[in-house]
């Protein structure tokens, strides 16, 4: 009986007595790497799908390229400025910003901040599947949202930047309407109320970018004035 003495002390010999230690840090739970689910061979399952995507893409592009000609205007002439002179479409959002803000803000500061914000997303605990905005202290959060929205809109009104105001107001309204959905389980309000703050910020950013780009591309004419694209204007 005395031979079966139970040892409770720790040995430092990892080879003789292997041991697993789990550290559970604050606000996390011990994570189990789950079953990765059924797997398929890359060859042929993935490669076949990629090949189909490639073929559909090339066929579609060839058809479009047969009928849609790339524009070619007159020879470059530094003495003849077109009105308006427009950048490529993906920079027209910035050019639209340039209409409201000084060049340093619209052309340098905002793009730099956007790129920096994108780069730091994974390093700042941004969780697009995280806690819904209205989970904890919904009343206080709603107040913060309202105050921030009003301050932002006031700032934009000061600069007459109404092509930013419009998408901002739309996204903010949907955000505020989603407050009603926090106790519902079905419907669009319930679905939207489950979104965290990061989801709302990215959606707002995309909405503003699309609005600025579309307006800059189709709705801006001589002197960056508003034009309707379906009306022929003297160009």
């Amino acid at each position: 009986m005395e031979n079966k003495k139970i040892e409770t002390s720790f040995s430092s010999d990892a080879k003789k007595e292997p041991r697993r230690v789990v550290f559970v840090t604050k606000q996390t739970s011990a994570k189990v790497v789950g079953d990765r689910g059924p797997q398929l061979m890359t060859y042929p399952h993935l490669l076949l799908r990629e090949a189909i995507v490639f073929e559909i893409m090339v066929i579609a592009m060839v058809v479009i390229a047969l009928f849609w000609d790339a524009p070619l205007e007159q020879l470059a002439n530094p003495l003849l400025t077109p009105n308006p002179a427009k950048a490529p479409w993906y920079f027209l959002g910035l050019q639209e910003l340039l209409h409201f803000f000084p060049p340093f803000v619209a052309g340098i500061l905002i793009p730099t901040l956007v790129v920096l914000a994108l780069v730091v997303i994974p390093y700042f605990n941004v969780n697009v599947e995280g806690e819904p905005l209205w989970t904890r202290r919904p009343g206080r959060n709603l107040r913060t949202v309202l105050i921030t929205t009003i301050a932002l809109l006031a700032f934009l009104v000061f600069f007459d930047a109404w092509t930013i105001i419009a998408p901002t107001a739309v996204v903010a309204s949907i955000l505020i309407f989603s407050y009603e959905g926090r106790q519902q389980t079905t419907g669009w309000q319930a679905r939207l109320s489950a979104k965290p703050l990061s989801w709302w910020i990215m959606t707002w950013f995309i909405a503003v970018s699309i609005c600025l780009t579309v307006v800059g591309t189709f709705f801006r004419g001589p002197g960056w004035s508003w034009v309707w694209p379906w009306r022929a204007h003297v160009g």
Partner: protein
Amino acid sequence: MATSVTTLLATLRETKVWKSIFRRGPANSNRTRSIAVFGNLFLHWMPVKVREKALHVRASYYLGSISLFLFLVLSVTGILLMFYYHPAAPNAYRDMKDLQFVVSNGVFLRNLHRLAAHLMVFMVFAHMFHVFYRGGYKPPHEFNWVIGVVLLLVTLFLSYTGYLLPWDQLAFWAVTVGTNIISAMPIIGDKIKFLLLGGHIVGENALLRFYVLHVVILPLAAFVLIGIHFWRVQKDGGLTVKPKDSDGK
């Protein structure tokens, strides 16, 4: 007909020559299917197996793959266009006219290159937003997200440098508008603009610089970064999949 082609292929795969080229026989077992991937220089960065959920269209909409395919189409059409192009003013513009009236399928070639370029910018943006909404940037994918942001900038710059090359009014003024913004940068703005344009205005030097950036420096940078980007998808544990990605569940 179909069977005869299949049998012919099956016979070919058993030949010494086929095996010497592809380093394997027919891929009829999981072992040889694995070799087909890791034994191939162009595929070896891919995983041998993929999760079924990662193959579901909703997992990616193939946006990253489409961006890569567009890059390949752009490389091929771009190299073909280089045969007809002189990066000098006003010869560049005459080359555009030659493409239009002299070169066989010249307009088609240019249309395809331009279309693919615009689509690539669009698809890279779409890819980035899709990855964000799926949480694909989360650990351990953090740095691959950063590489992706750099790739977005490279794509934009590639498209932008290509925009000047036709040397027409559209190209000239679009680039003038863009480079004027750089001057707004405090202290170094004018210096950077001078470095980019090789002068104070968009002229012949700017055309040559944009050409070199467009056909050598930026494509090389994109090529290397795309390689790392795709390779890391696998190294970091594959595509981000979600429970709801499976069909009908």
